[in-house]
Structures are given as structure tokens and as C-alpha cells.
């Protein structure tokens, strides 16, 4: 299977991977390709580079899909037979929207002003990921799009995104929340004290050490939110339904640098365990290595070895004249060959851990940053085998 076939056959493409690998750009490029191949496409992007956002018309955007004007695409020489929309995930805004949608009106303002809520919505591990999944579910249910491409928040590990609903589910476990919702709880740890003298003793020390204000806030927060949590497990189940559905595919975006390239086997088995199998891999910013087949004795074709710097320098010297220029050019070439060789070794190792059915695309390192529609279209050759005219 190719990446083109994969994207054609699915309705939801999730671009996962660690930060700083060009995940947003790849997601936007896949979405543009979807629009060019006739589908109503939306890309849900998170924290896009400003120039990319501007070129997509995202600068003025809230958290609703925004159709990119056909004239804007035409101006870049692109004539989509489908449509391209984009939206930005506003993480804080998405939590606020969730509260506004589901919390009882009288509790709404109290929740939004609660310091614990503000902290939770901004920093709780997994909450950004969870909100991205919430947005995805809303897009799927709207039925307005044939292809939804999701850019995920930068995480240390691709798995963090997949486990977000479960983690938030554990966090909002109703049995535990009940403890915090009891009104007398905020007055102290009296319940715990009565139940278990050992735990009570230590928790009392905890309370002294940390200050009680935090606990009052937590308790107050859960009292206000209790209505919202009633159907939270249902929502989480629904989120997993979408993530595990046959229409959804996870595409790992990674760079060939060793820092971000984990163990493919580990990732593949973990994802299979979570019932969200890895469907495709994009290596971004790959340096090409020049390998020239030796054809000894071939008439008129001198034997050249790309890895023999002296030979390369001699060849370049014949072209530009011997001296510093030839030396600098040959040295630069040798350095890039070195870089490329390391990358290919790592890519090769990674691929060996993958199933043959998983398509792999290599996107070369471009001379300049990719930050406009034309640049996104220029990636299509590498991603899908051919650009769409």
C-alpha cells in the first residue's frame, strides 16, 4: 500500500509525533492534497507557524472551520476540485467551550473563575490531547467533511496522544470524585480521619504542608462540575470509537535524527495493544545520500566514488578550478553525505521494525522553510508519488 492509497481510503488522518519534526506542515500538506483530489477536507492544526497560518488565512480564526478562499489557492497555481478548510485548536478556549456547553448555567461562572479549573485546563497532562480528540469527534459528527486531518499537540512521545482519553478518564474517575464532591470535605480531612487514622495523620500533614486553599478549590471545582462528569465516560468511549474506527489512520511523522526516532517495534506493538495501529510513516527533512553504481570499464564513464573526498574534489576542481572554492564545495558535499548516511542507517533500522503493509514516505530537507501553499504542494511528490496538477 502507498501513502496515497491510505489517505484515499480513510476519512480521518491523525498526524502524530514528537515536537519539532514538521508535523504541522505535513498535516497541512496532506490536507491540501485531499482538497486537490476532490474531497471536502479540513485540517485541525495546533500552534501553527505564523507564516503558514497567515498563508492559510488562519490568523483571524477561532475554533471553527474556515474555508480557504479558492482565489487564494488559484493565486498559488492550485485548482482544487474539492475544498480546503482549516481550523486552529484553541486549547484553553476548547475547555471553556466544553464547560459552557455542559455545565449548569448557575455553576458556569464559578467554574471558569476557579483557580484549580484554570490550572487544569492549561497544564493538566493530557488535557490538550483530549481537547484535540473532542474537536475531532465534533468534526466527524458534523458530517461536513470527507477528510479530516488532525495535527496533534507536540508530545515527547506519539503514544501520549493515544492514551489521553484513558488518562483523563482515570482522572475523572467518578468513585474518586465523590470524595471531593462531598461538601464537608473542603472543611478538612475529617472523613478520611475518621476512616483511617494512619492515612488521616499523613494527610493532615500534607494539608499543613501545602495549605488548605488548594483543597477547597479542588472540592469546589468538582462540586460545580459534577453534572458535567455524569456523561464523561460516555464521551471517552465515543472518542475511542472514532480513534479506533476503520475510517481512522495514524500516521507517524518523524525526522531521521536520533533524538526523535524511537524504536519502531516498541511503538508498533504499543499502538497495536491500544487497538490504534500505526498505518503510515513520514520521514521529514531527510538528506539524500548520493550512491552511484560503479560501472567498471563502461566506455566513456569514468569511475567516480561519492565517498572519496579527494576524488570528488579533483572532479569539482576540473569544473570550477583548483583552490579554496573546490575544496569548500567538496568538503560541504562530504559533510552532507555523512549526515545522509547516518539518517539512512536509522531509517533502515526503523523500517525493519515495521510491517511491510505500512507505507513509508521520505520527504527531503528543502532549501528553505515550507510556509506557503506552494511549498505544501511541493511536498506532494515525496508524500504521494506525484503532485496533483
Amino acid at each position, binding site marked *: 500500500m502507498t501513502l496515497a492509497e491510505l489517505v484515499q481510503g480513510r476519512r480521518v488522518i491523525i498526524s502524530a509525533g514528537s515536537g519539532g519534526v514538521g508535523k504541522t506542515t505535513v498535516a497541512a500538506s496532506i490536507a491540501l492534497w485531499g482538497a486537490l483530489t476532490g474531497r471536502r477536507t479540513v485540517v485541525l492544526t495546533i500552534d501553527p507557524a505564523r507564516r503558514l497560518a497567515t498563508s492559510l488565512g488562519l490568523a483571524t480564526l477561532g475554533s471553527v472551520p474556515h474555508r480557504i478562499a479558492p482565489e487564494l489557492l488559484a493565486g498559488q497555481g492550485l485548482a482544487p476540485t474539492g475544498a480546503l478548510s482549516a481550523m486552529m485548536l484553541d486549547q484553553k478556549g476548547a475547555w471553556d467551550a466544553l464547560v459552557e456547553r455542559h455545565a449548569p448555567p448557575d455553576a458556569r461562572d464559578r467554574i471558569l473563575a476557579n*483557580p484549580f479549573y484554570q490550572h487544569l485546563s492549561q497544564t493538566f497532562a493530557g488535557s490538550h490531547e483530549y481537547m484535540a480528540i473532542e474537536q475531532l469527534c465534533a468534526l466527524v459528527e458534523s458530517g461536513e467533511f470527507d477528510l479530516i486531518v488532525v495535527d496533534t499537540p507536540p508530545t515527547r512521545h506519539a503514544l501520549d496522544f493515544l492514551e489521553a482519553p484513558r488518562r483523563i478518564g482515570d482522572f475523572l474517575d467518578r468513585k474518586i470524585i465523590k*470524595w471531593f464532591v462531598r461538601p464537608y470535605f473542603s472543611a478538612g480531612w475529617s472523613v478520611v480521619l475518621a476512616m483511617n487514622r494512619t492515612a488521616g495523620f499523613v494527610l493532615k500533614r*500534607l494539608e499543613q504542608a501545602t495549605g488548605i486553599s488548594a*483543597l477547597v478549590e479542588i472540592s469546589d471545582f468538582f462540586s460545580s462540575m459534577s453534572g458535567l462528569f455524569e456523561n464523561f465516560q460516555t464521551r471517552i468511549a465515543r472518542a475511542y470509537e472514532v480513534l479506533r474506527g476503520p475510517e481512522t489512520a495514524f500516521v507517524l511523522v518523524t525526522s531521521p535524527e536520533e533524538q526523535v526516532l524511537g524504536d519502531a517495534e516498541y511503538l508498533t506493538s504499543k499502538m497495536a495493544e491500544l487497538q490504534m495501529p500505526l498505518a503510515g510513516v513520514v520521514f521529514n527533512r531527510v538528506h539524500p545520500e548520493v550512491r552511484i553504481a560503479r560501472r567498471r570499464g563502461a566506455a566513456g564513464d569514468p569511475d567516480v566514488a561519492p565517498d572519496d573526498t579527494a576524488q570528488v574534489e579533483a572532479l569539482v576542481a576540473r569544473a*570550477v578550478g583548483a583552490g579554496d572554492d573546490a575544496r569548500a564545495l567538496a568538503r560541504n*558535499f562530504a559533510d552532507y553525505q555523512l549526515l545522509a548516511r547516518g539518517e539512512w542507517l536509522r531509517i533502515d533500522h526503523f523500517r525493519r521494525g515495521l510491517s511491510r503493509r505500512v507505507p513509508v514516505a521520505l520527504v527531503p530537507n528543502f532549501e528553505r522553510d515550507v510556509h506557503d501553499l506552494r511549498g505544501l504542494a511541493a511536498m506532494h511528490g515525496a508524500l504521494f508519488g506525484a503532485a496533483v496538477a
Partner: protein
Amino acid sequence: MGAPLERRLQFVTGKGGVGKTTVAAALALLLARRGKRTLAVEMDAAGRLPALLGGATSRTPQEIRPGLHVLAVDGRTALEEYLGMIIPVKRLLASVFSSRVYQYFVAAAPGLKELMTVGKIWYEATREEAGRPAWDAVVVDAPATGHGLQYLRMPQAAMEAFGAGLVQREARRIVELLRDARTTAVHLVTLAEDMPVTEALEARTEITEKLELPLGYVVVNRFHDRHFAPDALARLGAAVARASGAEHALLESVAARAAEEQGWSDINAEHRARLTAAVGGVVTLPYVFAEEFDVGSVAQLSELLEGAIGGGRAAARRAR
């Protein structure tokens, strides 16, 4: 106020993907080479810092070469250690740590884990052994998200948010140490590209104005700086057109790699100029070409860092 390298507590901050961990490793190596008893701290036990220094992750300070130790600090363990100090009965502690209410408390209390992480680092930075500081230098590789600043924000937030109590008193002491320009430096690592520079400038404003922390070096990492003579490139282009077969393929690649390197060099120069105009001096680390960025590359980077910061001063100090 001493030179940033002379300060005992050095945080290395920066966005994910800028090479923050490699710079932290190079810095720790440089300090150890200068004869300082150095502790390199990672705030993520799955990080690469110890590996880049030739060691393995450890939850207690572990010497990996003479004068250089590594340590992984995480909030949950730090909190347990801290509670161990205020509640000295082991059996009580064990039963609390395993209770779900406690687990929940740790997950839910705003910023408690972050606070405990910084607290543990503070503890190491101020700890004394035989009447003198245990470490001459503590180098911290901050987490990648949000430039790692959410951790540095936390002691201040805790000081304001938590009611009177042990934690508030400790938070105050931590804030005082972090803000002291004689002991602390917060370095900021970035790439000389559009978004990274913009984000670095935002982070710098937050460090100096909002958090009021002493800024150390602004480090421009992976800087491409090769320019080729235009007439040589023109002659190369003409030769590519003339050549055939393997020679053509090779010359074409030589030209393509030159164009790629020059393209990035131009981008880097433009954005470093923008950064320099805003912050004054920056420390530039060149792009290191390597098949695999390993312990040897870190040593190389560490020497480049020494040169970029001011090799002259360092040499003078060694002579004394």
C-alpha cells in the same frame, strides 16, 4: 554578578527540537572540564542527557566521569522524598503513597509536582558536604514543552497560591535563590529560523520581565554558515550541464548540497541578525555534521561552546 558560567545553578531552556539537551550536555561537560564538581540534571527520566554524556539515567547522583554526575528528577519521587523528610515513619508513608486519595491529590493539586521538582533541584544546589557546597555547578536540562518555563513559574505561583505553610515558606526560599543573579543563570537555546526566534524573544521577555529571573546566554544552535563564491557556483552549474553519466550525477549533487547549505546559511544569518538586534550578544554554535550525534559530538560541541563564550577568558582562568 559573576559571568554566567560561574553561577552555581544553570537552567538550559528552549523549545523542543532546538537541541536543548545537547547544549545542556555540552555545558555540563565544559564546566566539569574546568574543574568544577558538576551535576547534570534531567527533568525527564526518559531523556537523553545521561546517554549524551556517556552514562545512564539515575535517580540518585551518579558519577559518570571524574567531577561529572548525572541525576534524573521527577516530581512524584521528589514529593515522596520530601514527605519522607517531614514524616519520618516509613510504614505510614508506604500506606499513604499507595492510597488512591493520595495519588489523586498529587495529580490534582495545582503545580505540586512541578514545585517539588524545582525544590529538589534547589536542594541539590544548596546542599553542603563537609562544610562546603556539594556542587560547584548544577546544570538543568529543562523540559521541552513551553520552553520549560512552567517549572520556573511554579515556585512564584506556589508562593502566592498556597496558604501559609511549609510549602509556602520553602517556595519563598526557592524563589529567592532563582532570582539571585549571583547564583542562577537561565540560558535560552534557539535556532536562527523564523518561528524559533520569535518564540525565543517571547520566552526571553517572560524570563526577564514576568519571572524576573537572571538571563544567562542566548544560544543560537545549529548555525549554518557557509557561503560559496558566486562565480564558482556558476562554473559548477555550467560543468553540470556539460557532464554526463556518473560524473553528471555527482556534480549535480555537489551543486545541490551547496545550494541547500547556502540557503540555510542565508536563513540563519537573517534570523540571527533579528535576534541579535533584540537581545544584544548571542552565543553561536555551528551546525555539527555527524553520522550519529554521540558522546564525541557532545565533546566537540562543548569545545565550540567554550570558544563561542570566550576562550580567552577561560584560558586565563586556567593559567591562574
